[in-house]
């Protein structure tokens, strides 16, 4: 059992972006899309950049945070990390204070075909859309 309370993005297949503060995570290995509530987006942003769970104490409900992180790990988005914790982003307390929705992540897989054969796979290889990464 790992006790560091620091997490990292679980694999290179997990890519994420933020649009107007809303986190979007794709698993390129299976085409799943993960959508986040407002508080979930803020917590994802923190944890995926190496902020420890402890640093979020007092800003979100502890039990809800435990359950949320457990889901992210179960979905293969985050994995425990040995890296030293990163500082809390300056904007995070305000983002969490302003959040109106509980911590939540939802899965959508109806665009999986597109996501698996998408241009995101190509970032390291000068080949161009729409080749896909071959299974290794």
């Amino acid at each position, binding site marked *: 059992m790992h006790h560091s309370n620091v997490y990292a993005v679980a694999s290179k297949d997990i*890519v994420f*972006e933020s*649009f107007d503060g*809303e986190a*979007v995570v*794709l698993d390129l290995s299976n085409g799943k*899309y993960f*959508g986040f509530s407002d508080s979930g987006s803020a917590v994802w942003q923190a944890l995926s950049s190496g902020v420890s769970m402890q640093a979020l104490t007092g800003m979100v409900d502890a039990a809800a945070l435990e359950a949320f992180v457990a889901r992210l790990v179960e979905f293969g988005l985050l994995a425990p990390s040995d890296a030293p914790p990163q500082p809390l982003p300056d904007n995070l307390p305000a983002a969490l204070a302003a959040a109106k929705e509980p911590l939540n992540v939802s899965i*959508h897989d*109806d*665009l999986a*075909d*597109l*996501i*698996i*054969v*998408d*241009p*995101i796979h*190509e*970032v390291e290889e*000068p*080949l*161009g*859309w*729409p*080749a*896909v990464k*071959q299974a290794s």
Partner: protein
Amino acid sequence: MKLSVIMPVYNREVLVGAALRSLLRQRDAAELDIIVVDDGSTDGSADVVRSMIDENPCIRLFQQENTGVTRARNRGLSLLKPETELVSFLDSDDISPAGRFAADVALFRNDPDLELTYSKMMLVDAIDEQSLEPAAGANSVIARGIHLSAAIFSRRLVERIGGFDEDFAQAEDTDYLLRGFEIGPRYVLPDTLALYYRRHSGNMTRQQDVQAREFMRVIHKSIKRRRANPSLKPIEGIFELEKLSDWRLM
């Protein structure tokens, strides 16, 4: 039926002539109206187009300051004539296969309620510039991919979809197609080969950083739209992309 084909062009003087010839050879398939929007080319692209207009008055050339492909496509949509019944697109570096429009326009003739045909495309790495067909020995793969040229839209559907989302610098075409399918048009998926999609060093989609983020935003927007409006249709059983996974092995 009057078919307008919108072609944005930016600095493609070497290729735009072939793209236009591939349309002109299909003049008997429909009453063709080719709308070329020159998006501020600094090479001879506009001259190439202009040199073809005398013999081919169905080509209309419009020039504008460079504003990017999304606005150029919207300019094309704004230039549709009232009598235009069908709308399609061809990029200035691609080729429309002989017979492509004859095959799918016939489907509209036979079904007045049809709003969209969405056919197949071939990715190919060499085109014979005389025949405008894949060159002997070319590598190619056929799929029902994600490309505007796979589609012929009824005028009514074009009005229903609205314009291209100018928030997108790239992937505006994917966004447009998803929005088109989400509103539940009457569509068919013919096996027509609707496009030879050239692979060459200048493909804009090779600007990867922007493309990846823009693509994620397209997916995000589609899911948000459908979450907010349950009457929108899921995007299922339309794209057949798995064959494209072989492409990299060639």
